[in-house]
């Protein structure tokens, strides 16, 4: 039981009390696990991640983190808040939201300084992070001067700077070029190899196998319609198709029209 980082029981959430975003979610994320939350657009993935990060609170059901209930009143306690924030890092889908400081360096230092580290310690962390993704040339630049990929790297480093036990990522590879995607996946896998728990929301099935051992699939009714081993779920093309996660792909190879479902697994078939 101590091994469980997040435990959700029958969690439901609706925006403005009338637009349901999550319905009856049960989930248990273990320490050191790589979990992916997949689903089509608007199925509640981002909302779930915000619940896990204590940014919004469920209408009903319970969320436990590190054995304690995660509620608004629990986060009002300074010790609990500092403890929780130093253990959980969140990479937002929109990097512009996450990079709010005048320079990239200040953005990376923001978390450690808020959590009580001295400037010297925070700078030491910054140096260590440059070994993971080297963005030294970007440190003094304002975030609005960066490309989308550079912003994403800076956003991930700003979350890693707090040295969290859990890293939550919302669509970390959306809209990025293949080289940047590779760099980000490597950084995530590297973080997991050091014992960090990784929770990623995505609908990019190409990356799921690498960044997840366990997959939770969200259906259009905002419920978890299936969960289990990543490889098993990725093989079930019919199920993925039914949940808008793969589509029929038609393209021309020389003189032949070639039709197949556009899923990750086919790319590995010789």
């Amino acid at each position, binding site marked *: 039981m101590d091994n469980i980082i997040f435990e959700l029981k029958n969690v439901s959430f609706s925006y403005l009390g009338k637009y349901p975003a999550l319905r009856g979610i049960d989930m248990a994320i273990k320490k050191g696990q790589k979990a992916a939350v997949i689903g089509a657009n608007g199925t509640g993935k981002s909302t779930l991640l*915000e619940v896990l990060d204590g940014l919004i609170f469920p209408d009903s059901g319970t969320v436990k983190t590190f054995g304690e209930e995660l509620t608004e009143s629990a986060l009002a306690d*300074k010790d609990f808040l500092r403890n929780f924030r130093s253990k959980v*890092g969140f990479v*937002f889908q929109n990097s512009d939201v996450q990079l709010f400081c*005048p320079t990239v360096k200040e953005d990376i230092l*923001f978390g450690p300084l*808020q959590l009580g580290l001295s400037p010297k310690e*925070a700078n030491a962390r910054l140096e260590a992070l440059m070994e993971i993704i080297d963005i030294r040339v970007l440190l003094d630049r304002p975030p609005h001067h960066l490309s989308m990929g550079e912003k994403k790297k800076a956003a991930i480093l700003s979350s890693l700077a707090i040295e969290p036990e859990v890293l939550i990522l919302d669509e970390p590879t959306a809209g990025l070029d293949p080289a940047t995607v590779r760099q980000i996946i490597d950084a995530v896998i590297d973080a997991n190899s050091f014992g960090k728990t990784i929770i990623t929301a995505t609908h990019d099935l190409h990356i799921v196998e690498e960044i997840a051992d366990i997959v939770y699939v969200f259906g259009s009714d905002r419920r978890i319609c299936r969960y289990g081993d990543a490889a098993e779920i990725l093989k079930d093309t019919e199920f993925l198709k039914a949940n808008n996660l793969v589509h029929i792909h038609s393209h021309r190879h020389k003189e032949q029209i070639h039709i197949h479902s556009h899923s990750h697994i086919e790319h590995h078939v010789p």
Partner: protein
Amino acid sequence: MSNSNRFIERSIMGALSFLKEAIYADEYASRKGFLQGLDPRIKAVTFILFLTQILLTKSVIVLLFLYALCLLLAKISRIDLWFFLKRTWVFIPLFTLFVAIPSLFSAFSPGEALITFKIFGINFIITRQGFQGAVLFVARVITSVSFAVLLSITTRHFQLLKVLRIFKIPQVFVMVIGMCYRYIYLFVEIIENTYRAVKSRAGASIHYKKGQSIAAWNIAYLWARSYQLNEEVYNAMLSRGYSGEPVVSDDFKAKAKDWLWLFCVSLMFIAAAAYL
């Protein structure tokens, strides 16, 4: 394209290019020049001394000397003088002269007549005192604006914001200004993209009524977007441990040349005060 459309296009593009020019100015702040190499805190203090000097002096000679010094500082800080003059002289002649013109005349500044002329039978007299006052006023405005612009273009904006803290301005306030600056660019991008999207779909000519409704709708959309962004950014801050009191690092380091510069400017300030 109708004239009204061109007016909207010119306004949008003018505003956007002004903001982009601000980004371009950041390039000057990153050049390796004299002022860029100074500690921003010391630089700000010395510029305040210059501005105080400008406000206190009643001598046009001292103002001209300070203006020449300002241009020299711009030159040794590798600022393109034409760019600098354009930036400082665009609004000054317009606004300052409008304010200064009435003070030329005897009705506002009585004294010794310098020039007398008649318009529609009314006698206008420009007095020596009025002329001297107007020259002093314009020289004072030009010199102070030039120093203020020089400080802002040779210092990166985030360093300027940090400098505000030495004047005991609360960190929250400094942070909010920084975020405003940061997110203005995001909205500029949205406006630019929206304008292009409208242009690509509607072609070159849009009926002005349609144009008005598109503009109104976009203002409303931007307002809604800024409201949403406000909430999202606050969540991003909370997520990284923000609890109402921002903490930031201060990595300024004053060197010997900064202290020497402060000493020279202070000496100049004291000497000028004694002379006056």
